[in-house]
Structures are given as structure tokens and as C-alpha cells.
């Protein structure tokens, strides 16, 4: 009986080790819980005449690139520290983030599809859009030289189409997906004529992982690319083109129940100190900033 028990114990321990090994390779998807602001027991330095709730939790709907790259984990604790507001992040494609705004499920949006953002404002869902930061898209692909490193996005896309080269498309209505489709459209071609063009309908990180496995090409934002742990055989094949600029905008959703907190987020993220913080993200690890301030 005792021996049996030891055997079970050994197997159980092995199981835990295997499972935790699996867990070790997975990247954290949730930001570390931000420290909860102190309750209003401490007296305000400047007494406010109208008593309105100064803290609470706001919901930010944003793109997978800000989350997958680790930017939000890097800057958001500072937001809570400075403003006292807690923040909840829903990271989805830009299309879905805008939809969350339309449905009133989010208070602020941090997204990157300029034409869609302008439409969102025009439809009255937000009063205005503020510039926050930008980075750029790059085309990555196998290093074995089917396409040499260049800065001509149109030639690169045509080479992929004409060569029937494998290309992984996000296919999820995200800002990156929308940009990719805009480039194909500007060339007046249909990517689906390429029999090796596939749509995976997943976030940037998952899509990059599949591209690595398939030794294919894809359009990715530079931040997710640099932050991705193992890119295998892939290198950047096209970068530095005007069509590849990737501006991020922030908007307060008109229907927000926390206008104070939402406005605090806008003021905070466009503030010079935060902008400075954004520009330092990734420098230590990747030797270059992943996002450039634009506010």
C-alpha cells in the first residue's frame, strides 16, 4: 500500500513538472494586476467643491499588438499610479475593439486603423481621435532569399503573388489585416489568386507563430515582431516604405460611464512623461524603441 502511494505521488509530481514546463513557454496574456488605488481615506490635498468619484475601473479595448508586444504591461502600472484609476484591458483586433466601443462595452479605445477610426468619430461614437504613437509594419519571410531585403512594398507583394509564395494573412479584421488588404487593393490584385495565401483569423502573435512553422511570409507590426520569442528562419524582407507606417490613435467612447477616468487616460497617455516612457519601451531588450511618440 505504501509503495503504491509513493508511485502515485511520483507520477503526480511528474505530471506537475510536465504541465509547468508547458506553462513556461506560454507568454502571459494578462497584465499583472495593477495595484489597487488606496481608498479615499487619505485627505485630498486640494478639496474639490463637487464630490464626484475620482477613481474606479475603466475598460480599454485595444489591439493585440499593444498587448502581445508587452507595451501595456510596461506602461499601464504608471497610469494607475499617477491617476488612481484601475484599468481593465480587452485586447482584440481593431475591428472588434471598435465594435466593443459601439456596443458601449469599453470606455477608451487604443487602435490603429486610421480610416476606421475616422469613421467611428464621424458616426458620433467618439468626439475626437488623438494621436498617440506610431511604429511601422514590416514584411517578414524566409531568409533563404526568395525575396531579398528591400523597401518596395508593391514589388514585394507582387513577387509574393506572382511567385505563388506562401503568405499568412491575419484575416481577422484587425488594423494589420485592414492595412494588408489596402495594399493588395492599391495594386489592383486579388491575393486569393495565390493558392498559397491563407487566412488564419488569429491575433498577431499566433499568426507569427504559424508563419514561422510554415516558413511563409506575413505582414506584421514591428513591435510584435521584435517581441516575438522565436522567429525561426524568418527575417524582415521589406521595410521603410510610406505605406507601412502604422499610427495609433486613442479615443474616448461617447457612451462611457466613466468620463473622468476615460479623459484621465487620454491626458495621461498624451502627456510628455508617458510619451517619454513609451519611447523607452523595448530599448533595453531590443536595442531600439518599439513605438515612437506622436502626441
Amino acid at each position, binding site marked *: 500500500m505504501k509503495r503504491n502511494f509513493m508511485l502515485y505521488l511520483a507520477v503526480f509530481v511528474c505530471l506537475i513538472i510536465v504541465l509547468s514546463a508547458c506553462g513556461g513557454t506560454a507568454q502571459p496574456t494578462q497584465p499583472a494586476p495593477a495595484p489597487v488605488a488606496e481608498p479615499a481615506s487619505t485627505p485630498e490635498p486640494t478639496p474639490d467643491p463637487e464630490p464626484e468619484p475620482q477613481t474606479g475601473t475603466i475598460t480599454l479595448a485595444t489591439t493585440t499588438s499593444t498587448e502581445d508586444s508587452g507595451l501595456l504591461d510596461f506602461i499601464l502600472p504608471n497610469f494607475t499610479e499617477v491617476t488612481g484609476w484601475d484599468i481593465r484591458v480587452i485586447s482584440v483586433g481593431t475591428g472588434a475593439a471598435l465594435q466593443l466601443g459601439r456596443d458601449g462595452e469599453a470606455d477608451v479605445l487604443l487602435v490603429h486603423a486610421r480610416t476606421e477610426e475616422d469613421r467611428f468619430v464621424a458616426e458620433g461614437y467618439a468626439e475626437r481621435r488623438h494621436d498617440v504613437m506610431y511604429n511601422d509594419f514590416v514584411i517578414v519571410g524566409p531568409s533563404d532569399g526568395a525575396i531579398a531585403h528591400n523597401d518596395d512594398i508593391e514589388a514585394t507583394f507582387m513577387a509574393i503573388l506572382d511567385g505563388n509564395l506562401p503568405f499568412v494573412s491575419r*484575416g481577422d479584421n484587425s488594423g494589420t489585416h485592414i492595412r494588408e488588404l489596402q495594399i493588395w487593393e492599391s495594386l489592383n490584385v486579388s491575393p486569393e489568386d495565390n493558392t498559397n495565401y*491563407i487566412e*488564419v*483569423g488569429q491575433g498577431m502573435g499566433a499568426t507569427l507563430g504559424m508563419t514561422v512553422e510554415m*516558413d511563409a511570409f506575413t505582414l506584421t507590426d514591428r513591435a510584435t515582431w521584435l517581441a516575438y520569442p522565436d522567429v525561426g528562419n524568418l527575417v524582415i524582407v521589406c521595410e521603410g516604405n510610406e505605406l507601412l507606417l502604422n499610427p495609433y490613435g486613442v479615443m474616448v467612447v461617447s457612451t462611457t460611464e466613466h468620463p473622468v477616468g476615460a479623459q484621465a487616460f487620454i491626458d495621461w497617455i498624451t502627456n510628455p512623461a508617458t510619451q517619454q516612457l513609451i519611447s523607452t519601451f523595448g530599448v533595453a531588450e531590443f536595442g531600439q524603441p518599439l513605438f515612437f511618440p506622436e502626441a
Partner: protein
Amino acid sequence: MTQILDAEVLAIITLTLRMTILSTAISSVIGVPLGLWLDRASFAGKRLVVMINRTLMASPPVVVGLVVYLILMRNGPLGFLRLLFTFEAMVIAQVLLITPIVCGIVYTASQRSSERIRVFALTMGADKRQTRSLQIKELSNEIFFAVITGYGRAMSEVGAIMIVGGNIRHHTRTMTTTLSLLRNRGEIEQAVFLGAILMLIAFSVQMIADFLRKRERRADENF
């Protein structure tokens, strides 16, 4: 993917049915005999095997998906088969998920009834083979239930097939991965429609199961 029911959606439904039926069939072919055998057999470490079986019955699909992914990936042990992001990979992951469920249910049912049946068969002078066939016949309802439960898991599962199939349009996109994508895209209407179809299929499976069981009972009454 703007239309509610177009050729693409139909293809997704067909692919889902093909995948779930195939993986349930394979799981049943492996799991049912395994469950029956596990009840009959006695060997050192049997309790451990049963415990592992019980654990695997509750294994989270994403863990199974991750394991299959690591095995099938380019640098994995079976990477040379080039099976990742294919229909076959999804079936493999589902078989790993469903077989323990089928096996576990059959084992439990068999364990509960086998003693009675064996004693009965023995008193009726049945030989070993007759006893076994009587046992299977008596357990047919439970085996049926095990298969249906396995099928339910196959239909509802999304975590594993998302990882090993990759949700590739026209290729490995199933009803559940499409639903998840539609939500990500913010196309809630279409998602609700697909969800309704999924529920309808689940209901149809139950109706067929119910019908078959009734027919079987009627056939039994002839004895």
C-alpha cells in the same frame, strides 16, 4: 464572410461534421474495447492506469492542443510528417481528448454490471465468448452514451483544434473556431447564427440517439 448562409459556411459545417464523426469513430474503436478490457484485466498498476484515465478525461483541450502542436511542429519528433495545420492534426488532437472519455465511461459502466452478468451467464452455462457478447449487449446503452458524450466533446471543443488546425480559411476552419473568430471580428450576428446551427446539430444527434435506443428496446421485447 458577410452572408449568413453561403457556400463557405456550408463548407465549414461539412468539415466540422467530417472531423467530429471521424474523431469520434476512431476514439470509439479504441476507447470501447479499452474500457471493457480494463474492467476484465487485472495487473499491477491497474489503479494507476484508471487514475490516469480519469485525469485525461478532464484534460483541458488547450493542453492537449499544445502537446500535439509540440509533437507535430517542424522541429518536433513527428515534424517530418508535415501534419501541423491540417485536418489530420485536428483529428489527432480530438482523438486524444475523446478516447479517455469513451474509455472511462465504458469502464465504469462495465465495472458496475459485469459481476452480475458474469454470474448470470455462468449459471446459464455460457462459455467465455458468450459471456462477453452478453456483456457487450447488456452494456449497449452505456456504450452508446459514451460515444454520444465523446461526440459532444468533439463538437464543442475549440481550444485544441484552434492550436493544431490554425483556423485556416477554406482549410481547417470549423464551426467553433469560426465562432471564436467572428467574435474577434465583432460580427456578433453571424456568430449567433452559427451558434444556433451548432445547437441544432447537437439536438439532432440526441434525437437520433433517442430514436435508435427506442428501436433497440422494441427489438429486445421480442425475446
